[in-house]
């Protein structure tokens, strides 16, 4: 069976998809990510960004603001994260290079490590079918 040109999943309680991230140091980590079109950025925990080769997310002196830190509003209020460019993002058979991520520690009680926001989803077409409870992500330009 040939691979599908898109990624399909169940909406379930939350639309999630496994995503493989390749960092600047070529280390690969895969996470069950929340598909969140309402989020401007993709989000990754600080510890994972560090292990993927982005040591700038853990400065030795946290009193000094980093040039690439961003303040944003989330469901927990205002917060600050560090902007990084993930070297490679693989969503099943779909791949992206140099995707904007924010290194920020979302609460672990949520049960997700990674949020896939519009900085990755803007290169895809996202279809949600609430009748069948499924969603489909395909790369822009791919045959429907």
């Amino acid at each position: 069976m040939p691979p599908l040109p898109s990624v399909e999943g169940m909406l379930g309680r939350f639309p999630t998809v496994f995503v493989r991230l390749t960092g600047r140091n070529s280390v690969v980590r895969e996470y069950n990510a929340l598909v969140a079109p309402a989020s401007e950025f993709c989000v990754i925990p600080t510890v994972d960004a560090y292990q993927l080769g982005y040591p700038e997310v853990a400065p030795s002196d946290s009193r000094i603001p980093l040039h690439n830190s961003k303040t944003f509003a989330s469901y927990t209020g205002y917060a600050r994260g560090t902007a990084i460019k993930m070297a490679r993002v693989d969503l099943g058979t779909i791949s992206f290079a140099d995707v904007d991520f924010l290194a920020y520690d979302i609460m672990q009680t949520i049960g997700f490590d990674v949020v896939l926001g519009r900085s990755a989803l803007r290169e895809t077409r996202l279809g949600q079918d609430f009748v069948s409870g499924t969603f489909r992500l395909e790369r822009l330009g791919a045959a429907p």
Partner: protein
Amino acid sequence: MSQSGAEESARPEELTLSQISARYHDRWVAVEVTRRDRNGQPVLGRVVAEDVDRYNIRMKTMNAADICIFYAGELPFRLHM
């Protein structure tokens, strides 16, 4: 037991994601993925680390070059993002 047999018995058991969720309910797991579906999504894997805390999982898999990490089990509440 042969050496290869001993190595095989020392390796974690290959499980489906449903089996992992049932066996490691409400814990964070680190999995070596051994099979994927047509979507490229993991379907089979070996659990190499598990913990109730997601940061401990990172410490246990610090030197892994390629590992899949996720929360096994129901989420404790509904999200409204």
